[in-house]
């Protein structure tokens, strides 16, 4: 049996976990690294034993031994110095402002600063505009994020296959990334204005005008805009991840007579799990940022179906309602923490057998 082990650069003891590709119970074996062939970082090698494919997982068992030499101390000191600006920056521009936000959320206003505990949260949770913003943002994210992930993955797979004009298609899907938001909005206005191009086409085919930006349809327009803007970036991430799937595993799967669907769901999806998580989180964050496009399209008070959380925050900021704004921001960040936590759990579950 051939064993390929990640090279142990620091001579640490490693635990080698063999996992049957078809889901058999893994077994453990201890070994000291010997062979030179390894994959960079924490990627796994595989072993083939008696016609059965295994994945090998390595984990560091012991704590890294500290070398208390002068050189190491100096290195730590200098690395501390180099880290300090970033650390200070994060502290100054992220941590401290967040603390201020927490403070503002529990006082009646930034001037008199009377402690009101959770009153602002109660007020915000009972506010009609906030509830509408939460509902719209949630609805938008639930529709747009999965669409962005699935469509970009499909596009990546299509562009990975042997089709003509691959690079042209890639450029086409990436082009929205290069266009400034203001221009995108202008294009969208030309298309979806009441007297815009889309309505002209509708009229030409005997349809009636639709007020795309000031009706229930506005949600559809914003989802399309979001997808148009974000598919290219997601697609590139997926294409990179697809390219990094070890070819030999795919070859083995082929040898094992796995169908393309089996290869996709049992190998590719598992290898892509960390990328899917990343793309989902990025899309989720971008879905919150779609406010920018909506604001430029429809100003600060849009049709109620596209009134997002950031509208609420932007308008409350303009009205100097810092306590409302802070409470809403904290509620939003809590929701984000929960959503991202759930996504991590999902990724851990689906990608548990692939080190990402």
């Amino acid at each position, binding site marked *: 049996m051939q064993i390929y082990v990640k090279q142990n650069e620091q001579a640490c003891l490693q635990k080698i976990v063999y996992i049957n590709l078809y889901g058999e119970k893994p077994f453990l074996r201890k070994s000291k690294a010997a062979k030179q062939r390894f994959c960079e970082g924490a990627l796994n090698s595989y072993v083939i034993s008696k016609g059965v494919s295994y994945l090998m997982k390595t984990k560091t068992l012991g704590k890294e031994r500290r070398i208390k030499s002068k050189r190491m101390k100096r290195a730590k000191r*200098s690395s501390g*110095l*180099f880290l300090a*600006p970033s650390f200070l920056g994060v502290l100054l521009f992220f941590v401290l402002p967040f603390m201020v936000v927490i403070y503002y959320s529990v006082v*009646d*206003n*930034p*001037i*008199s600063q009377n402690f009101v505990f959770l009153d602002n949260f109660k007020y915000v949770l009972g*506010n*009609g*505009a906030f509830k*509408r913003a939460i509902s719209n943002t949630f609805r938008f994210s639930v529709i747009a994020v999965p669409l962005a992930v699935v469509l970009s993955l499909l596009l990546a797979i299509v562009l990975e296959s042997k089709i003509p004009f691959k690079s042209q298609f890639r450029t086409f899907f990436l082009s929205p990334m290069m266009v400034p938001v203001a221009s995108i909005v202008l294009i969208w206005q030309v298309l979806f204005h*009441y*007297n815009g191009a889309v309505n002209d086409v509708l009229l030409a085919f005997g349809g009636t*005008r639709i*007020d795309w930006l*000031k*009706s229930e349809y506005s949600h559809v327009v914003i989802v399309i805009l979001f997808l148009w803007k974000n598919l290219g970036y997601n697609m590139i991430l997926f294409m990179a991840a697809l390219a990094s799937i070890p070819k030999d595993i795919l070859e083995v799967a082929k040898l094992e007579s796995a169908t393309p669907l089996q290869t996709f769901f049992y190998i590719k999806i598992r290898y892509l799990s960390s990328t899917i998580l990343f793309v989902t989180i990025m899309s989720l964050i971008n879905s919150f940022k779609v406010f920018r496009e909506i604001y430029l399209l429809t100003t600060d*008070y*849009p*049709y*109620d179906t596209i*009134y997002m959380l950031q*509208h*609420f925050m932007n*308008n*409350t900021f*303009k*009205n*100097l*309602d*810092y306590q409302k704004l802070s409470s809403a921001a904290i509620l939003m960040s809590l929701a984000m923490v929960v959503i991202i936590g759930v996504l991590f759990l999902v990724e851990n579950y689906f990608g548990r057998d692939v080190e990402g």
Partner: protein
Amino acid sequence: MKKSKLFTKMMHACLILTMLISMVGCGKSEETGNNNATDYVYVPTFVPIDIEGADWLNDVIIVGDELYTTYSVFDETTYQSEQKFVKKNLTDGNDFTDLPIQVVATKENYQSSINSFCIDENANIYVLGCEYPKYDPENPEASYVDVAPVYAVYKFDKEGNQIFTSDISVLLTKDEMNSYVQNMLVDKNGRIYLSSNNLVFVLDENGNELCTLDTQAEWIRGMGMDKDGKVYVSMYAMDYNGTDLVEINPDTKALGNKISGCPDGSSNGNYNAGIESGILVAGNECLYEFNTATGEAKEIVDWLNCNINGNYVQSVRAGSDGKLYVFISEYNGDENHYEMVILEKKSSSEVVEKEEIVVGTLYSDYNLQSAAVKFNKASDKYQVKVKTYISDTVEWTETTYDDALKLFNADLTSSNCPDIIDLSLFNADNLVSKGLIEDLTPYLDKSSVVSKEDFLDNVIATSTVDGVLTSIPTYINLQGIIGRASQLGDMEGWTIDEFIAFTEQYPETRVFNYATKASMLSIFLNYSIRDFVDYSTGKCNFDSEQFIKVLEFCNRFDLEYEYNESESFPNMIREGQILLADTGFYSMQEYQMYSLMFPEEIKVMGYPTTDGEGGIKLSSYNSYAMTSKAQNKEGAWAFLESMLVYEKYDEWNHNGFPTRKDMLEEMFVVASTPEYIYDENGEIMLDEQGNKMENPKTSWGYDNWQADIYAATKEQCDAVRALLDKGEMTSMMDQGLYAIIAEDVEPYFQGAKSAAEVANIIQSRAQIYVDENM
């Protein structure tokens, strides 16, 4: 190996040093050149220029210690104006002395005047004189015969002895558009420059034409000579808030390249040499030194720090003694007051420092500056400083206002919060709910000079939000709808339905002059907008039948009104072609004017409301609020209080009704006191019936209609008093709602959507707005 370590250490050190330097740089404030930021200040000395009988003073020029000026005296019996040239020594304290400088008319029945003058560094005086036909009060028509005036340039020595005269009539009468000389100056070589509408005439040292240069400008703003003796002509910039300069080169007889970035000034268009370089430009807020070589403007003096209202500054000159001479002309609505302010540089330590009161506003306000100057001059303890969020040198773009307001908002909640803010920019309800506004009631209660009872009750009531008296506006105007009393009947107010029904009684009559769909909507929503919102539940009703009905009524009018010059609004009113007039009243005289314009008794109604009550709209001015974060509340109140105190109505210089009851009553007294015509013995003249002959207080004109305004009747005063009592001020929140409605209703007015469709959209957006503000 050692070398490598040394290199690494050096690199580390360099990086750390760079980082530290950049961090230090973050907090460094830029030196602005403002006298506050340096170790010196300009201390003002005020020298009044009182010349008995002078109606109008031209520019004042300082050469050495001598002040030169010309003034005119109008003789009401002969209808002739006489001009005099005088000088005054600023150091000896003596009065003005006449100079024998006169422009004598050479033609019979002609009179002469001094159009412009300038003085060179040797105190030689150059005068542009003009001769034109005399005004004959017996035969006024004959005075306006089309006779070309005679123009000549005169040179006098400092004693007033004439050196030469040169007739330049041919030069100035070539082009009718360029016959009036705006500015005149003389350079170091004795060459004379005259600027007209868009031409610059250059004369040699003997007054002969050297060249005429076309600036291609629509309008020449001014002319000036910089520190290096170069002469520039300035023009209004088209793409920013300032002026462009172009050098005049008499040697090449050509204009130089355009120099952009010069701030616009409040002065009369004459620029003088800077202290160190370039030229001095008097802005509304500051004095700038504009460097003509680099195109950069440096702030030299903040006018308010020197107790000067920048709006009144006519010209500034830098003396060789380091002093700045500022000529001020202040018009108080009745007469001009002239003053020379000498600014002397002194070390900050020599000047007693006063406590600073900061007033935050978006841009320099004429009334605010006047109040601040008055207060600063009177107070030994406090100095009011106006902080403008849109500087007078800032280029106006679409976002200028919004950006400035954002910055202002940010300051309100930070440590930069001004002591006093201009409340007209904000929603008072919102600021009160944030605890940003100090309640003025305790200050008013403690005040020994004003009390709450001194002011109109409804003004105090509508300025009070949740028990907080936010501000006390000093003046207001009222807006309403005027109609014939006979047509309006007993109605005291009207609902929307009643208003529509009233107009439908007169289908052939235009409802308002220049009425459009948008203006009608504005009239309807002025007061009833809040009726479409139930503030107890936060529910909007903009998709209701009632609102759709309003939209449909407004849609009956024209989208845009085509102005017809031949139409006369007063004639149409008198002939019954127009039913109502939507207008604002700023004084008693406007009410009197409408009373005369309508052929019968008038009645002022409010805007339509849901319940038919009220509707008279009040707009407040000079509404300043003290912030709860004010560093010096006592000083802030002292300033606010000073704005509320006027000893007599004569001091009143605002276009509106005073909010102080005593002042308002005084206004009614003044308005209702007749002015009579007196004979040569000082006796009131009587007409044929033996009635006293009344002199009109003023005349008001509207289109081709004109009316003399005499003393107001008691009924007229009572009517205006009642309207002021009934009026209410609208809040900023209504403006936000109105903006949404006005935007969304447009497609309906354009015929693109139905009333129900736009009502649905308005409901959707307005509901969010209301929810946010609940």
